[in-house]
Structures are given as structure tokens and as C-alpha cells.
């Protein structure tokens, strides 16, 4: 079973281009509607989120189901506008507002307790993020991304050649852009937010995606060394074919753990593992179909140019 990635490279390029374009359009729409390319969570824009659960061990506390209107009244009564209020499960409540200081928050909690009953402090989760912290997170995240890109370029130029390195980074951009695009769509359609763990996910995708590309490059280099006179198209095709099972199997094992995390890991880790699932799948895809074909194309160009020069 051998197949040629080189022959259909225009198809692969168009597919990737289409997905990336879709993502960019979604980000543009999102930018207009939400003021950011992806739906930002508390971590980036600041605010307070209260996640409360009623204490059902107190008699008659949970007799009536939570009345959303009563909750809304209590929140509005504090003079807070632009809130999002959600009932989570049967007894849970999630309220997101602008950043509240300790007095405002205590007042809100008291008002809520009066309206719908007391809460279990052991099941409470409170997050308050000041507006500056979010900006810091974003800028240091982008900086870390650039630093790791630079580190990878330097290492690959040293181990391989600089054109390998540049193309690996293009493949990386491809994976990151697609993941961002899909999350932008998810943010618009399902209201999924990106938080600080999403930044972590993107950086992890960076590391993993290059790993896949490196394995194929390693094989290309090896074949080049053994058979220097083979045409580059065949070398790349052979390298991809010889490493194909490995690429697929490695991705499968990682996806197995990620699916497990996605299913059982709970709320916090769900979007994190989803981002990694998308990114890693794209990483495997881009290593096989994008990084290899681009390298081949580049070497063809260079060859024909050097032939021209010789003429």
C-alpha cells in the first residue's frame, strides 16, 4: 500500500486553504460581534464568576427548583448590568459579571441566599480576574509562542537545513490557525470560550506538531543520504509512506488519552482536551500532507532555478 502525496498536492493545499480561510472569516465575524477573534473567557477580559450550588442538606432549602427570574432580580438589584446567568444541573448556578470587589460580591451572595436559599461553601467556585491580568496573560502567551517558534527554527536549522525549518514553521502556523479557526466557530455557534488553558493547549500543539514533521524530515534526509540521485518527488513520497504507519499510530495513542480526558476529565479540562484533539490531528495531517509537499515544491523550485543559472 503506497500512495503519492506529491501527485495530489494541489488538492491537499486547497483543502487546508479552505479550512484556514473559513476560520479567518469566522474570526472576522467574531471580531465584529464580540470584539475579539475568539470568544474570550474571564481570564482575558476580567470579571467575576460565581459558581454556586445550593446546600440540599438544609431542610426545605431545595424544595422549589431554582427560579431564574428570582436570580435575575437579585443580580439586577445590585445594579449589575451585562451579566450572564446560567443554571447548571439542578441546583447549580453560574453568574458572570464585571469585576466585583469583596463588598459587592458579599452583598450579591447575601441577596441570592435570601431569594433562593443557602449555598454549600464547599461546592462554591469564585473567580475574579482584574482587567490587567488578562492582558498580561495574552501578551506573555504570544511571546512564549514566538519564542518557541524561534527556538524550533534554530534547532531545525542546526539539525537539518534552514529550508526544512522554515517549512516546519509554516506547517505549525497551519495547525495553530486551524485550531484557532475551529474554536472561533465554536465560540460563535456554541458559545465556547477560550481561557488560559487554551494558550497552554496551543503551545503544546506547537511542540507536538513539529515532532511529527521532524520524523518525516529525518526519513527524507536518510533516503537522500542513501540515494542522492533519486528525484526529490520520489524521496518525499517514499519517506511519507515509510513513516505513515508511525504517524498514524502515534496520533492514535495520543488521541486515546485525550479522548479519555475529554470524556472523563470534567468541565475544566474538556475544552482543553478538545483543542489538543483538533491541534494534534491537524499536526499529523500537516506533517504528512503539507510539510512534505511544500518541501518537495521548494526543492523543485530551487533545482529548476539552479538549472536555469547553469544554462
Amino acid at each position, binding site marked *: 500500500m503506497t500512495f503519492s502525496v506529491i501527485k495530489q498536492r494541489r488538492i491537499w493545499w486547497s483543502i487546508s486553504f479552505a479550512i484556514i480561510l473559513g476560520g479567518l472569516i469566522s474570526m472576522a465575524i467574531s471580531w465584529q460581534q464580540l470584539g475579539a477573534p475568539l470568544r474570550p473567557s474571564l481570564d482575558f477580559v476580567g470579571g467575576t464568576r460565581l459558581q454556586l450550588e445550593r446546600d440540599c442538606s438544609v431542610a426545605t432549602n431545595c424544595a422549589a427548583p431554582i427560579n431564574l427570574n428570582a436570580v435575575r432580580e437579585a443580580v439586577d438589584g445590585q445594579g449589575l448590568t451585562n451579566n450572564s446567568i446560567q443554571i447548571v444541573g439542578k441546583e447549580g448556578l453560574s453568574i458572570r459579571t464585571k469585576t466585583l470587589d469583596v463588598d459587592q460580591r458579599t452583598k450579591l451572595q447575601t441577596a441570592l441566599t435570601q431569594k433562593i436559599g443557602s449555598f454549600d461553601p464547599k461546592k462554591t467556585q469564585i473567580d475574579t480576574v482584574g482587567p490587567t*491580568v488578562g492582558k498580561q496573560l495574552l501578551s506573555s502567551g504570544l511571546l512564549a509562542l514566538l519564542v518557541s517558534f524561534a527556538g524550533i527554527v534554530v534547532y531545525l536549522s542546526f539539525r537539518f537545513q534552514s529550508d526544512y525549518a522554515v517549512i516546519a514553521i509554516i506547517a505549525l502556523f497551519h495547525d495553530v490557525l486551524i485550531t484557532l479557526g475551529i474554536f472561533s466557530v465554536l465560540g460563535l455557534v456554541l458559545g465556547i470560550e477560550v481561557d488560559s488553558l487554551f494558550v497552554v493547549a496551543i503551545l503544546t500543539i506547537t*511542540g507536538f506538531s513539529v515532532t511529527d514533521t521532524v520524523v518525516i524530515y529525518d526519513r527524507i534526509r536518510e533516503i537522500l543520504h542513501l540515494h542522492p540521485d533519486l528525484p526529490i518527488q520520489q524521496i518525499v513520497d517514499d519517506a511519507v509512506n515509510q*513513516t505513515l504507519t508511525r504517524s498514524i499510530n502515534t496520533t492514535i495513542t495520543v488521541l486515546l488519552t485525550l479522548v479519555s480526558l475529554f470524556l472523563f476529565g470534567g468541565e475544566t479540562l474538556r475544552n482543553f482536551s478538545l483543542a489538543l484533539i483538533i491541534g494534534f490531528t491537524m499536526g499529523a495531517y500537516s506533517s504528512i500532507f503539507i510539510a512534505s509537499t511544500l518541501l518537495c515544491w521548494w526543492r523543485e523550485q530551487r533545482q529548476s532555478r539552479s538549472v536555469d543559472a547553469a544554462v
Partner: protein
Amino acid sequence: MQRQRPLLALIIVLLIAAITVITTIPIPLGLDLQGGSQLTIQVKPTPEVPQITERELEAVKKVVEGRVNGLGVSEALVQTVGKDQILVQLPGVSDPQAAERVLGGTAQLEFKTQKPNTEAQLFALQSSRSEQRAKQDELRKGGDQAEIAKNQAALQNNNAAIAELFERTNPPLTGRYLKDANAEPPQAGPSWSVGIKFDQQGGDLFADLTKKIAGTGRGIGIFLDSELISSPSVAAQYATTGIAGGQAQISGNFTLQTANDLSVQLRGGSLPVPVSIGEIRTVGATLGKDSIQRSIYAGVGGIVLVLIFMVGYYRLPGAIADVALLIYAILTYATFALFGVTLTLPGIAGFILSIGMAVDSNVLIFERTREELRSGKTLYRSVEAGFQRAWSSIVDSHVTTLIACAALFWLGAGLVRGFAYTLALGLFVNLFTAIVCSRTLLLLALQFPSFRKPQLFCPNLPTITKSQTEAQL
């Protein structure tokens, strides 16, 4: 066999050591798993203090520590983060109201004078205060919350009573007049002292204050956030002029350590930098327990799926990779304990993820082995070649992931750093288990004739090569 024996011994020794480490050193859980509050305090520069340096941050941290101690939370942790942040962790606190109220705001340092005829009272209160403090330290180790709260209340009453014995000067001599404070080495004798320095106006106020109480036996009360931190008396020789010139020396039974502590407290109190709470994360204890439960399910689920896949696809080598994977999990967990990693939810995610990545090296090796078998090499040679020729790919892929980890670590706020740290430690352990462990175990298995069948390594091997291989063996 001869070559494998020392390595096998090494693996067994490491395993025993790892299990011992796991059973003796407990891994501390992060606040997101055990429940508690984490507050990030932002220190802001002002026109007077345009830049927050390490020295200033340290001084502010001291002030924050003092306030946190006043909360009476056991195992509270205060540390500096980055250039201008202080992280406060309060385990078990599900409503950080009290903490929020005391932690924000600029430090209040004030020099007051002792009221007349209160010497005996002050002495009694101070000695009972030091008893209560000692008791509090003792109680915090035990962790009995009710007792701690009770003693804390007593301590607070005591502090308030002490404050009653002092009166404010007019105008008040506050920390903003204090320019600097430093521990000074002993001039004569063994004791260190603390030198303080006021600005022009502060120097005048201080001279007035000292003139009033010099030689009376009463003391200056130095209060930080309403708590008396030092009460030096003033010698009679200053009765006419007071301590003029804006400089003074507090001497007493200071060691280097205590002199340093006091001077850092004074510096912290003199800083006009406002602190504000930038971030609060509170997780209820029950929610934390749920998270632990869930991550155990996810971890076990992930491991089992990977184990099944490896053995299903790679047969005998797969089974050996599975053994190596279990060794990996144990060794990595032991490494966490050894390196003092605090386990957080993202940290666990990193660990689980690394289990999926850990078999990557084995997949590379076994695919190589199969290729060599298909090209007609003997089993033993194929296995050796598989390990040798996969080596460079393995190193390259580890290094690139480590680069991303390093960037993550450097970016480093709490959650993110935990993830990068666990992932990176996992990668190092993986180099050992995937290569040394699985190779040793595989070569060991090849000692047994019943395992020496190429079909166990590569199903559907073309028959010609198979018979060749067997003939060569």
C-alpha cells in the same frame, strides 16, 4: 544476557526506589484539587516609587505575610511571582472575604508614643502575646481549625490592647516619612541593630517624639498595620534635643536574622506603593475532590486504551512497551514527588497526555524493526537496528517538545507552569523507559526460544523472508 543483566538490575533498583519514594513522600495537591483560595496581589508603582525592584517586592511581601499571619490559616503560603506580583495561597478557605479585606491596601506604618504609667501593662501584654504566638505556631502544625481561630481571636484582642497603650503624635509620624531601614552589624558585643533614616520633615517629627519620652522608660511604639512590631526606649541623654538629624539606631538583642526581619518590615511599611488584588481563584473542597476523582478515571481510561492498542497492534514488542509504559508512569510519579511538584489539574492533564506521547518512541522503534524484518534481516538484528535507526528521530522529537515546554515554563503563571513542568519531567523519564527499558526487556525476551518468532513482531511477514529468517536464526 550478559549485557542486559546490569541494566535489568538498574531498572529493578529504580523501580523499588520509585515505589519507596511514592509511599514515603506525599505529593502536595494544588488548591484547585484540595480546595482553597488563591489571591494574586498586584504591586503598583507610584510617582514616588516609579519602579518595583526586588528589594521593594520583598518588603511588600513581608507586609503581606504579616497580614496573612493575622488570618490564622494553617499552611498559608506567600510567594513573589515575576516582577510585581505576590501570590497568596490559603488552603481550605472557601470564602476569601476576610483575606480580601485585609490584603488589599497600602501598608500602614506608624511611630507612636507610649502613654504614661503603662510600662507594667505593656510588659504583661507582650509576654502573653509571645506565648500566644508560640501556641499559634504549634496549633498550625496540628491544623485544628477551631483552636486556631480561638487563639487567633485572643491574639487580636491582645494586639488591640497593646495599641491602646500608645498614642498618636500630632501630626502622625507615619511610614511615608521613613526613607530607609537597614540591619547594621554589631559595633561592640554580639548584637545587631537596625538603622532607620527619615526625611527632613520626618526627622523633625522624630526629634519631637523622642524628646518627649527620652529617659522616661516609656517606649516608641512602631506599628505595622496596627500591630506593634518594636517598642524601643530612648536614652535620657536625648531629653533636651530629641534624636535629631533624622537618623537613629534601634538596638536590642537582635541577631542578623531578627534585625533583617525588622528592617524589611519597616521598609515594607514605608513604601507608599498600593497593592491591589488582581486575581482570586476559589475552589470549594468538594469540587476539588470531584476533580481528583475525574482525573483518576481519565488517567486510568487513557492508560488502559493505550495498553490495549499497543499489544493489539505490535504484539510481543507491544506488550513489552506496555511494561515500559507502566514503569514510565511509576517513575514519573516518583520524579514528581522527588522534585516537589505540586499536583494541579493541568499538571495531571500534562501527565496523562505524556502517557499517550510516551509510546511514540516505541512506535518509532517497532515500525523500524518491522521494516528491517521485511527487508529480510534476522530477528535479533532487526530489533537492534530498530533501536539504533530510530534514535535520531526520537532525540529530535524530544528536543522540539522540550523547546515548547521551556517557552511555556518561561511564560509561567501558576497553572501553566505546572503543566509545562510535569510534561518536561515526563519527557526525560520517557527517554529512559522507551529506550533503555524496552530494549533491555525485549532483548531479554529474545533469550526465550518461544518468543523468538518473527510473527510475534510482525504479522503477515512474506513467507520467503520468514523461512530465511528462521534459517538464519
